[in-house]
C-alpha cells in the first residue's frame, strides 16, 4: 500500500577504472577574462574525444574585484585522462596565466616539469605593479627554469579579430578563445566542439566570427610554431572503454537538481524547494528555479529558519518539502529539523558544506558538518544522513533521499559540499524516469485511523493530506501518545516514542546494501571515506596498488544509519585510516560504534585532499601494518 523504492537501481556503479595519469590544465585570469567558459570548452572537447575529465572551478571570494588584482583572480582546472578521472588533479601540468596577478597566485602550484603559458602582452608596468611584482617575472630569473611559452596573446588576438571591428574591449574578450585554441593544440584535440559551441551561442554575428577566428588562430599558432603536443607529458594509459550510452558533463549542483526533479516525477509529488541564498548552496536554488518545471516550486524564504519551516509546511500539505543551505544557514535550521523529527514528516535537507566555523571561508570546501548532522539538535532527534561521492552520484543520492524520507516519514540530510557542487565530470544519462512509477499513496481511509500508528515494516506513521475527509487530526512538537497522537506527558509513553523514533531511523539500514570493501582480499589496512573524499581515495589507492602497496577501501554513502555489516567488515582489518576534510568526525563515529582503533587523517585547509597526500599517508601506514 505504501511507496516502495527499488533501491538497487539507485546505487552508483561498484566498479570503476580510476585514471591515475592524464594531464592537468589550469586557466587563470581576471574574473572578466572568460576563464570558466574556456575551461568548459576544453572539458567538452576532451569528453567528446572519449577522454575522462574532472574539473575544478575556483572563483574569487569578491563579487567583482578590480581588474588585475590578485584577489580577483578566477581559475579553472581540469584533468583529462583515460578512464574515470576522479579528481581534477593535484598540480597543473599546464598553467595558462592571462595576466601577472594570475601568474603570481598560481605559479607555485605548477608541476616542476610543467609548462607555463603566459600572455606576455599583459605584462605591462602598471599591471605588474597591481599584481605586486617589483620586477617582471618573465625577465627576472624568478620562474626557476620552468618551461615557459610567452606568446603575446593580446596582440595575436587583436590581429586575428581585427576585421570584425569589435573595438579594443570587444577584441580582448576573444583572448580566451585564442588560448583555448592553443591549448587544444597542446592537448592534441581539434577545435570542432568549441566551434560548434561558438556558433550555437553567438550565431553568425561579428562576435561569433571573431571568437571563431581567435580560436583558430590560437590553434594555428601551435601548429605553425611547431609546439610539441603535450601527450609527451602523459603517463601512458590504456584507452578506456566507456559503457555505451549518451553522456554529458555535470556538476554536483546540477545533478542534485535533476535528481530532485526526477524524484518529483517518479513519486508524482510536487517538490516545494525552500531556501535562502547562501554560498555555495545557492547554485542549487538557481538550478531548480531555472528548470521551470510544473512540479518543482522554488521558494526564496526570508531566512533559513523560514525556509526549513516552509518545507515542513509543504510536506505537511502533501508535497515533498526540500530545504537547502550551507554553514550558518544549516545551524539555523536545527530547531525546525527537531520539529520535523517530532511530527514525523518527510523532509529532504541539502547541506552544501563549506569551511567553518561561523562565516568561515564561504567559497571553500569542508566536510565538517557530519557530527552536527548526526547530533546537532536538542533532545534525541535522529534523522537519516547520506552523502554523495561525486557530482553524478548527487543524482542518485537525491532520489534515494526523497525515497527514504517518504517511506520512513523522516527528515533526510544530504551532505554535499562546495567541492562536489562545483566540480564536473562526464555522466552517462540515466534511464528515463517513468512518471508516477513510484507513486506515493496517501492515507485516505478513516477506518481505524490513528495519526501515530506505525507501519510494521518501516515503523513510519501514515502520511495524510489535509483536505482528506474524515481524517482531521492535530499534530505538534509536544510529545504525543503512541498511536493516537494526543499530547502526552506520560513517562512510559515518552520512552516508547523516543525508542520508536530511534528505531524507525535505524530501520532504514535494513533496506541498505551491505558495505563492501574494494581492493585486495588480503589487505590489512583499510581506508574509509565518505562524501567527496571518495574520488581522491580511490585514485590514490589505484596508484598505491600500481606500486605494490596493499590497501582496501570502504566508502560510506549512508552515514546514519550505517550499513548493518560495517562492524564485521571493519573488524577484518588491522589498521583503519579515515581521511576527512575536517578534524576527524566519521572516525569518532566508527570508534564509538565498533570500538575499532580507526585513525583520523584530518585536513582543514578549505581544499580537498590531494592524491599525493593520500598516497603518502597510505604508504606510510601500509608499511607499518605489514
Amino acid at each position: 500500500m505504501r511507496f516502495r523504492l527499488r533501491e538497487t537501481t539507485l546505487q552508483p556503479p561498484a566498479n570503476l577504472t580510476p585514471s591515475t595519469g592524464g594531464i592537468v590544465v589550469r586557466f587563470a585570469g581576471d574574473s572578466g577574462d572568460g576563464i570558466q567558459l574556456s575551461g568548459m570548452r576544453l572539458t567538452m572537447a576532451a569528453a567528446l574525444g572519449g577522454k575522462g575529465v574532472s574539473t575544478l572551478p575556483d572563483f574569487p571570494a569578491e563579487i567583482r574585484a578590480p581588474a588585475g588584482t590578485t584577489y580577483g583572480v578566477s581559475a579553472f582546472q581540469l584533468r583529462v585522462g583515460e578512464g574515470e578521472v576522479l579528481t581534477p588533479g593535484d598540480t597543473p601540468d599546464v598553467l595558462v596565466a592571462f595576466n601577472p596577478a594570475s601568474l603570481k597566485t598560481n605559479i607555485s602550484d605548477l608541476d616542476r616539469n610543467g609548462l607555463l603559458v603566459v600572455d606576455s602582452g599583459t605584462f605591462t608596468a602598471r599591471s605588474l605593479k597591481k599584481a605586486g611584482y617589483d620586477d617582471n617575472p618573465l625577465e627576472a630569473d624568478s620562474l626557476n627554469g620552468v618551461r615557459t611559452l610567452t606568446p603575446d596573446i593580446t596582440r595575436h588576438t587583436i590581429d586575428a579579430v581585427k576585421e570584425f571591428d569589435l573595438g579594443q574591449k570587444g577584441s580582448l574578450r576573444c583572448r580566451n578563445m585564442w588560448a583555448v585554441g592553443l591549448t587544444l593544440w597542446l592537448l592534441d584535440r581539434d577545435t570542432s566542439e568549441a566551434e560548434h559551441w561558438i556558433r550555437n551561442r553567438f550565431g553568425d554575428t561579428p562576435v561569433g566570427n571573431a571568437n571563431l577566428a581567435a580560436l583558430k588562430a590560437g590553434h594555428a599558432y601551435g601548429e605553425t610554431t611547431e609546439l610539441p603536443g603535450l601527450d609527451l607529458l602523459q603517463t601512458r594509459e590504456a584507452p578506456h572503454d566507456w559503457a555505451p550510452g549518451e553522456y554529458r558533463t555535470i556538476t554536483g549542483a546540477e545533478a542534485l537538481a535533476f535528481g530532485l526533479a526526477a524524484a518529483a516525477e517518479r513519486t508524482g509529488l510536487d517538490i516545494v524547494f525552500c531556501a535562502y541564498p547562501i554560498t555555495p548552496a545557492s547554485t542549487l536554488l538557481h538550478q531548480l528555479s531555472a528548470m521551470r518545471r510544473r512540479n518543482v516550486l522554488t521558494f526564496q524564504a526570508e531566512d533559513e529558519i523560514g525556509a526549513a519551516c516552509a518545507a515542513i509546511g509543504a510536506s505537511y500539505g502533501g508535497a515533498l518539502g526540500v530545504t537547502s543551505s550551507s554553514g550558518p544557514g544549516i545551524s539555523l535550521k536545527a530547531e525546525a529539523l527537531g520539529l520535523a523529527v517530532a511530527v514525523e514528516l518527510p523532509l529532504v535537507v541539502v547541506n552544501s558544506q563549506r569551511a567553518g566555523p561561523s562565516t568561515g571561508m564561504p567559497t571553500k570546501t569542508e566536510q565538517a558538518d557530519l557530527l552536527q548532522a548526526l547530533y546537532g539538535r536538542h533532545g534525541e532527534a535522529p534523522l537519516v544522513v547520506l552523502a554523495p561521492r561525486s557530482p553524478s552520484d548527487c543524482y542518485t543520492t537525491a532520489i534515494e533521499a526523497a525515497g527514504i524520507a517518504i517511506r520512513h516519514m523522516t527528515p533526510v540530510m544530504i551532505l554535499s559540499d562546495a567541492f562536489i557542487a562545483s566540480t564536473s565530470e562526464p555522466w552517462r544519462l540515466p534511464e528515463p524516469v517513468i512518471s508516477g512509477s513510484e507513486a506515493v499513496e496517501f492515507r485516505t481511509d478513516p477506518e481505524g485511523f490513528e495519526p501515530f500508528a506505525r507501519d510494521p515494516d518501516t515503523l513510519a506513521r501514515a502520511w495524510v493530506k489535509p483536505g482528506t475527509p474524515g481524517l482531521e487530526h492535530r499534530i505538534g512538537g509536544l510529545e504525543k501518545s503512541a498511536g493516537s497522537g494526543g499530547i502526552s506527558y506520560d513517562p512510559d509513553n515518552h520512552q516508547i516514542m523516543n525508542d520508536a523514533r530511534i528505531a524507525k531511523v535505524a530501520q532504514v539500514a535494513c533496506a541498505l546494501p551491505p558495505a563492501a570493501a574494494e581492493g585486495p582480499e588480503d589487505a590489512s589496512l583499510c581506508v574509509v571515506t565518505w562524501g567527496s573524499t571518495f574520488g581522491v581515495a580511490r585514485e590514490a589507492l589505484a596508484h598505491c596498488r600500481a606500486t605494490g602497496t596493499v590497501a582496501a577501501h570502504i566508502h560510506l554513502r549512508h552515514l546514519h544509519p550505517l550499513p548493518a555489516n560495517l562492524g564485521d567488515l571493519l573488524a577484518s582489518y588491522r589498521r583503519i585510516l579515515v581521511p576527512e576534510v575536517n578534524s576527524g568526525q566519521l572516525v569518532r563515529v566508527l570508534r564509538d560504534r565498533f570500538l575499532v582503533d580507526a585513525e583520523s587523517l584530518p585536513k582543514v585547509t578549505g581544499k580537498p585532499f590531494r592524491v599525493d597526500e593520500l598516497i603518502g599517508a597510505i604508504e606510510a601506514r601500509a608499511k607499518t601494518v605489514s
Partner: protein
Amino acid sequence: MNAPVRVARDYESGQEVRWCPGCGDYAILRAVQKTLAELDADPSNTVFVSGIGCAARLPYYLATYGFHTIHGRAPAIATGLKLANPELDVWLVTGDGDGLSIGAGHLLHLLRRNLNCQLLLFNNEAYGLTKGQYSPTSRIGTVTPSSPAGSVGDPVSACRFALGSGARFVARGIDTRIAELQATLSAAHAFPGTAFVEILQNCIVYNDGVFADFTERSVAAERQIHVVHGEPLRFGPDLNRGLILDRDAFALRAVSVGADGVPEQEVLVHDQTNRALATLLATMEGPDLPLAVGVLFAEEGPVFEVAVRDQVEERGHLPLSDLLRRTSTWKVSP
C-alpha cells in the same frame, strides 16, 4: 444561500480545553467556532496552524486539521503549506510573544507577500505560557518576574506594525465583544490575502484587567469605536461622539457631534482602503481617543500562492530527458 448545515459544536474537537478558568481565550475559541459554523466551513479543508503559547493551543480544540508548530514560525509553515496546496483554508493563530517577538520577521514577510490566510494574533500583553513575563506589547513599566522594576522600551503597536509591514487587511477585535469579533473574522475570511486580526485578550492570571480601561462594560461605549467602511466614525453611548481630522496637527481628534458639538457632516467617514487613515485609527490611544475596533484597512492585491502557481503553470514543462540534454551530449556506442 442555504442555511448553514453545521453548528458551532461541530467544530469542537472534544479535547478538554486546558486554559485557566476565566481566560479570554475561551471566548475567542467560541467566536472562531461560531464563525466556522456561519461560514459552513468544511472541517476537512480547514487547517489551523499555530506557533507556541497559550493562544497557540487553539488548534487542539477544533475539529479541523491542526498543526501546533514551533515558537514564532507558523507564518513560514503556513506559507509552505499553501504552496503545496493553495486550496486549503488556512487560519494562523499566534500571540503577542509568538507573533511580535520571536516571529516578527516571519510575520512581516507573510503580510507583504499576502498569502491567502487569516492570522489571529491574541494580544494579552504578556507571555502567558511561560508564566507572565512582559511581552513586546507590554506597556512601559509593566512589573513581571523578568522586569521587577518595570519593563523598559516602547511597546509594539500590533496594527501599526502590520500596516507598516504592508499588510493588506488589518482589523482589531476584543475577547469581550464576541458578536463584533465574529463579524470581523468573517470579513477576514472573505478577504483574498493575508487578513491580520489583532484580538485583545485578557490573561486573567498574569495581566488581569490590562484592557479594562476600555473593555469594562461601563466605559465600553465611550472608549471603543467600531469602524465600518463607508460609515461615519461615530461612537459613544448614543453615538454622540465622532472623529474628525485636525488638519493642522495632521491627527485625529474626538469631538462631540450634533447640537453641542461639530456638525454631523464634519465627522470623518471610514475609508478602509486608506492606509494613512488606518494607521491613525490603529494608533489611537486613551484617554482622549477611543480604541478602534473592526476592519481598519482592506485593500486587495496579488495573492502570493496564486502568483507563484500562475508562474509555474505558464512554464513549459520539458520532459526530464529533454532537460538533461539542454547542454552538449555525446554518445558512446556499444
